[in-house]
């Protein structure tokens, strides 16, 4: 190792505690930054996974108000529409009432053919269709609860009171990384039949219609056609692409997302200030050393290399450590929040951003110290030893 490199390294390790704390600050900042970014990404993943050839039709009043089952045939007759699926939020709780996962009552044939990303083997599919007491779950959910085929899954209804028991007839895989494997599907007809028997006020109602269309470029005009069909009816509709639907669903959370994104930047800003302060303190302490180097004939090139090298070495090392820790930490956090954010993963570009952020902090924090050192008069070397 060259003499200047040795000088740089020993300078860095001179105040071990200060270096350690500053490095720790960067590690934590990169970790927090990456985690918050991944949370925001996971929130948007639903929208990213959304198809452009699927429209979602819901009640214009609110998502919580259903649509009559009779809308289905009228939607299907609209030119350009290939298929109409139905889905209804079931909202049951499993076992102790604290284990939540989403369940949807669907019309299996139509709905599943609109979602080819949920891959189900032919046998499982046939078994599911054959028996209305059957349910299918995503692979991740099956693993989480240790279910295997034939198991009975008891759910306590919340919207639809009573005990519900489903038999597990199939497990689907997500064909894309963002296809949610954490959900359960059951038969709409079973649910509706029971509601009819009870003369439940919500009988014959659908949560949303999933509308398959031939041509994604005609999505807007078909959506308008659907909505105009039901204008001035008792259940007016609001139709959007699935993507727009997800985004509007996220809208209520978008302010929170904005705050989280802001916080991720503030974390970086804070560590930037911490690091700039530590470096400023350091170069002030070494003032006469830099003056001595100048007297010996070392120019700005060497001084900048020494100071910036120290800062960048610390920042990149700590940044890399932060990125390395981000993966296991995100995995743990992902487990904790999988009910709400099933798609929490660390994207490669988040790691890259974290690394760049650390390097950026290292670069910006060193600006003032460099300016200071370049301005130290050479005569300062003669004045005193410290």
């Amino acid at each position, binding site marked *: 190792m060259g*003499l200047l490199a040795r000088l740089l390294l020993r300078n860095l390790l001179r105040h071990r505690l200060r270096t350690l704390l500053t490095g720790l600050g960067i590690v934590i900042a990169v970790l927090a930054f990456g985690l918050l970014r991944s949370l925001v990404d996971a929130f948007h993943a639903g929208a990213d996974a959304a198809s452009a050839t699927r429209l979602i039709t819901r009640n214009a009043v609110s998502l919580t108000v259903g649509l009559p089952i009779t809308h289905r045939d009228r939607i299907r007759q609209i030119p350009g529409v290939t298929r109409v699926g139905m889905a209804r939020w079931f909202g049951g709780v499993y076992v102790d009432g604290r284990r939540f996962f989403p369940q949807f009552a669907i019309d299996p044939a139509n709905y599943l053919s609109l979602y080819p990303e949920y891959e189900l083997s032919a046998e499982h599919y046939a078994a599911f269709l054959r028996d209305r007491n059957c349910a299918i779950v995503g692979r991740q959910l099956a693993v989480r609860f240790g279910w295997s085929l034939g198991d009975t899954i008891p759910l306590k209804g919340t919207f639809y009171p009573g005990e519900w028991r489903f038999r597990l007839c199939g497990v689907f895989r997500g064909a894309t990384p963002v296809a949610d494997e954490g959900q359960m599907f059951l038969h709409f007809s079973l649910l509706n039949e029971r509601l009819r028997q009870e003369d439940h006020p919500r009988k014959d109602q659908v949560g949303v219609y999933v509308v398959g269309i031939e041509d994604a470029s005609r999505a807007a005009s078909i959506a308008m056609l659907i909505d105009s069909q039901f204008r001035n009816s008792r259940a007016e509709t609001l139709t959007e692409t699935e993507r727009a639907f997800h985004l509007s669903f996220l809208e209520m959370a978008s302010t929170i997302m904005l705050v989280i994104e802001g916080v991720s930047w503030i974390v970086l800003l804070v560590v930037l200030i911490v690091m700039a302060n530590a470096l400023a303190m350091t170069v002030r302490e070494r003032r*006469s050393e830099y003056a*001595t180097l100048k*007297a*010996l004939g070392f120019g700005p090139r060497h001084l900048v290399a020494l100071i910036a090298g120290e800062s960048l070495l610390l920042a990149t090392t700590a940044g890399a450590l932060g990125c390395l820790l981000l993966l296991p930490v995100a995995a743990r956090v992902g487990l904790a929040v999988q009910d709400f954010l099933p798609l929490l993963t660390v994207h490669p570009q988040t790691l890259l951003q974290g690394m760049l952020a650390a390097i950026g902090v290292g670069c910006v924090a060193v600006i003032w110290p460099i300016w200071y050192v370049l301005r130290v008069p050479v005569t300062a070397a003669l004045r005193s030893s410290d």
Partner: protein
Amino acid sequence: MAARLAGKTMSEAAEPEMPTHALNAGKPAAPMVRLSAVSKSYWRGGEQLTVLNNLSLEVAAGDFIALMGPSGSGKSTLLNLVAGIDRADTGQVEVAGVDLATLDEGALADWRAANVGFIFQFYNLLPVLNAIENVELPLLLTGLHADARRTRARQVLGLVGLADRLDHRPGELSGGQQQRVAIARAVVADPRLIVADEPTGDLDRAAGADVLALLGRLNEGLGTTILMVTHDQHAARAARRVLTLDKGVLVDSAGG
């Protein structure tokens, strides 16, 4: 300079019985330092403080000057001008034939690296580098490669009597030893001129005497021109010539 470095001048100095060269006090030599009508003042609180007033001075190559005078008389200021770490307001500072005013900051730094060795009152060694690394430091600015730098630094440390302290850090050395490392650092790149601002100011009598003896040997053996500021009459006796500065003016001079 590489040629001078590559030469055997230092090893000659290591052996006192070798004939001295480059200096013959009897002969007039070309001046190493020439100050012509140099003035320097500082502004403090809107008031002008004249530190050096129209000062002229010639120092011959190979001379060893002790600069004395009361505190605040401008000794350090004068030294800084000659060493090229500060600039005069008016007048001309010429060292080894170069008018320092014609050099910009970068050129001046290069010039210092090639021509001036510094010895400071408080040694100013880098605390994280050991003795040999401190001595090696100025050689980074020469064309020498690593092995040659190492060898050279070891050689010079041997010359100042620290062959057994190569890997000691400054904190593990006495003041006198630190100053000897600093002297090794000042001479390692074979400068024409050595400036020393109270090099014995922080040392006891014995350590100070060692340092002065070393400077004397450098001056005699290598013909290095030395400009030393000191408060100490004893120290001044090591020099060939004593200059006294008072209120920015040279008042008298006497042979050393």
